[in-house]
């Protein structure tokens, strides 16, 4: 691999960050990666499914809430009657043990919650992370000290503990998925902040930022006009990798009993109730697990794609998925 040799002597382009005019360029670069394209299509489909959940279930003629006691064998712990978890023309993916609720319906509605929560949580993380990161990167030593300390604190706090506590504090009237998203966002922005801070510090050393200062702009204006665009690439990339992580975090919270609550379906919450059914009703576990896998796979591959497309060299400068609180997953 001798990109180094390929690069023309002037060495521009390869080292310069991608220009905004490079939106076209971005698509061109993205299009060259087949894997990323496939992933993009998959993600698009998933989002579509999530959005169209009610429609899809209507087509199937089911809804995620209705019980079908007749479809389960009460004597045997409520295992679905019939082969493959009671798959039938009415119930495309079979029914849920113990309740007989339609699995397809729950799966597609689950997609809504899981994806929704993940996206929202990521949004919050990025929002806080970028804010804190830039402020720390641009601010004077004191500001930096304080914010970096705050970041350390949030990073050093076990996610689960805070989540459990916060979930308990917030009145139960509060819509659960929103709460879950908020909590994840509020306790896991540390890594984003750190990355943004680092990136800001690198960027602000660049001559064009110095030039902007010389022309007399305020720090705020400089942050907005000169830095934010430069941060876009790493942040978008990192966000693309946070989303799948957040999906699994949502699952973990459900496992600990502080996630999304029934009757709302979420993949994580399905997984947690399904894990004991692996033998008696395998598809009950395999469906959400499979869905989760495909999503995470697609999002991660897409994330890589975006990263390479946005900034080939920075690709590896921005390490993947690091820093995210691991509790989510262990």
């Amino acid at each position, binding site marked *: 691999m001798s990109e180094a040799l390929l690069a023309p002597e002037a060495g521009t382009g390869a080292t310069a960050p991608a220009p905004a005019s490079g939106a076209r360029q971005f698509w061109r670069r993205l299009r060259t990666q087949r894997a990323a394209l496939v992933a993009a299509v998959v993600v698009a489909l998933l989002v579509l499914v999530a959005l169209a959940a009610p429609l899809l279930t209507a087509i199937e003629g089911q809804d995620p809430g209705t019980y079908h006691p007749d479809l389960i064998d009460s004597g045997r712990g409520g295992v679905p009657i019939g082969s493959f978890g009671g798959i039938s023309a009415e119930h495309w993916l079979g029914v849920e043990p113990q309740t007989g609720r339609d699995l397809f319906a729950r799966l597609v509605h689950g997609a809504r919650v899981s994806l929704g929560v993940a996206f929202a949580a990521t949004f919050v993380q990025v929002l806080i992370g970028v804010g804190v990161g830039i402020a720390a990167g641009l601010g004077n030593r004191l500001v930096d000290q304080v914010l970096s300390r705050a970041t350390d604190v949030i990073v050093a706090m076990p996610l689960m503990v805070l989540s459990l506590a916060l979930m308990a504090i917030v009145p139960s009237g509060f819509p659960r998925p929103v709460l879950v998203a908020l909590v994840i966002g509020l306790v896991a922005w540390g890594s984003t902040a750190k990355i943004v801070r680092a990136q800001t510090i690198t960027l602000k050393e660049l*001559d*064009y930022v110095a030039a902007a200062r010389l022309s007399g702009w305020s720090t705020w204006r400089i942050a907005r006009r000169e830095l934010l665009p430069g941060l876009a690439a790493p942040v978008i990339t990192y966000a693309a990798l946070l989303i799948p992580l957040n999906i699994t975090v949502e699952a973990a919270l459900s496992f600990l009993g502080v996630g999304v609550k029934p009757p709302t379906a979420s993949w994580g919450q399905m997984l947690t109730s399904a894990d004991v059914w692996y033998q008696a009703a395998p598809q009950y576990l395999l469906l959400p697990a499979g869905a989760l896998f495909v999503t995470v796979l697609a999002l991660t591959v897409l994330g890589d794609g975006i990263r390479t497309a946005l900034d080939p060299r920075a690709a590896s400068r921005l390490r993947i998925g690091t820093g995210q609180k691991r509790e989510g997953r262990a």
Partner: protein
Amino acid sequence: MSPIPDKAHSLVHVTDLVVDFGETRAVDRLSFTLDRGAALGLVGESGSGKSTVASALLGLHRGTGANVGGEVRVGGIDVQEASGAELRRLRGGKAAMVFQDPLSSLDPYYAVGDQIAEVYRVHTGASRRAARARAVEVLDRVGIADAVRRARSRPHEFSGGMRQRALIAMALACEPELLIADEPTTALDVTVQAQILDLLHVLRAETGMGLLLVTHDVGVAAESVDDVLVMRYGRSVERGPVREVLGAPREAYTRELLGAVPRVDSPREASAPVRGDVVLEAVGLRREFGRGKRAFPAVDGVSLTVRRGETLGIVGESGSGKTTLGRMLVGLLDPSAGEIRHGGDPSPGGVRAGVQMVFQDPVSSLNPRRAVGESIADPLRARGEHDDAVVRARVRALMERVGLDPAYYGRYPHEFSGGQRQRVGIARALAAEPRVIVCDEPVSALDVTTQAQVTALLAELQEEHGLALVFIAHDLAVVRQVSDRVAVMRQGRIVEQGSVDEVYGAPRQAYTKQLLAAVPALDPEAAARRRTARGELAAA
């Protein structure tokens, strides 16, 4: 220095070499030969394809998607046809390459000695111990003191010159017949450059290996090769013995090229001392970096004055603190001690519209995501000019003035050449209607022809607006060309200050002398004389 005659067959034989990177043709039907022991200089400006040729000699384009045509024979091996194994034997064995940036060209994680040893073992299959010994030997050979110990240090513990020596040592390790040096001194200070060139000279004389020197610096070529091949757009412009080509160029382009090269010895109309009033004054400036034990002063007690309409040149080698000084002058950095006065009154610190800067790197000095017009408009808008029409009109005028097509207002930096970007930078500085512009290495990233144009532009602007310029550069020749007064910096201090004629004509400080002696000359005889002179200076 006469090449060892060996007419058996030439060492390098290139016929109709064509290299395409996708659509762009980097090298276009180039042919040349290099006899054993001879030295050929490939001279050209950026984009002329000279480095691509160098890589082609070692077949480094293989598997990169580059499209190579024509025939390349090195030491009898047909590089195009050679098998992987053959090629590996050629690389480093028959022909070794020395790269431009000595730091990035060595593996930061391994000891220099080990890296040389590794190469040696690949080619000789020698034992570890033997390879180490060889490494020390060659390191010693290229003049690295205490080679045994230094062989154990990592590249970042070496100075730039030592690294380049280490690279050369690596090249020598397997006693190649051909040494390919790709811009071997571009990243080095002028004194170090001289040392390296001398080293190459000596080595050639001793080992009798052939040398292919790729460089953009005509002077460097003049110093060290017998023949030159001037390239442009991947084609050969002119080829011949150094003396003829540089002495009496036949091609227009060659003449243009030579004309643009600034010299330290060319005749120069004595500039009358400028008597404008002082617009910028620095008193006892000091700036430290790092805290506690690691603190070191980058600038240490510098005082200077800049008068209206004059150009103050500041020369110094890397690490001399000239950039730090520049940033303090414009207020991007606050001094740890001392103060800056604008037109007499002490400045509260921080930036001042009256003092602007032109940066070294045309790539990083413009926001890649904003139209150049917008960048130029910044100072205007920042000053509170909200009427868009007014702003645009003013920006267009400025662009026109610096020689840019106003139609490019909406274009993005990556669509411009280095020289054009620098013009944008200048326009942006002008927009603030400054009294002083500090230019930090404004032309060092540019090709000589472009350099000349940009320096000329600066001179004109100075005339028009009675600007005061602070011109910071490492290139003594350029500084001499543009400055009225010169300050020579070393280790954060100004060692010598005075009018150009004083400093260049009759340098008082040994360091200044050393610098001047190191500047490569265009004519080979002069070069030879200087080489001996340098020897004496070093001896003294």
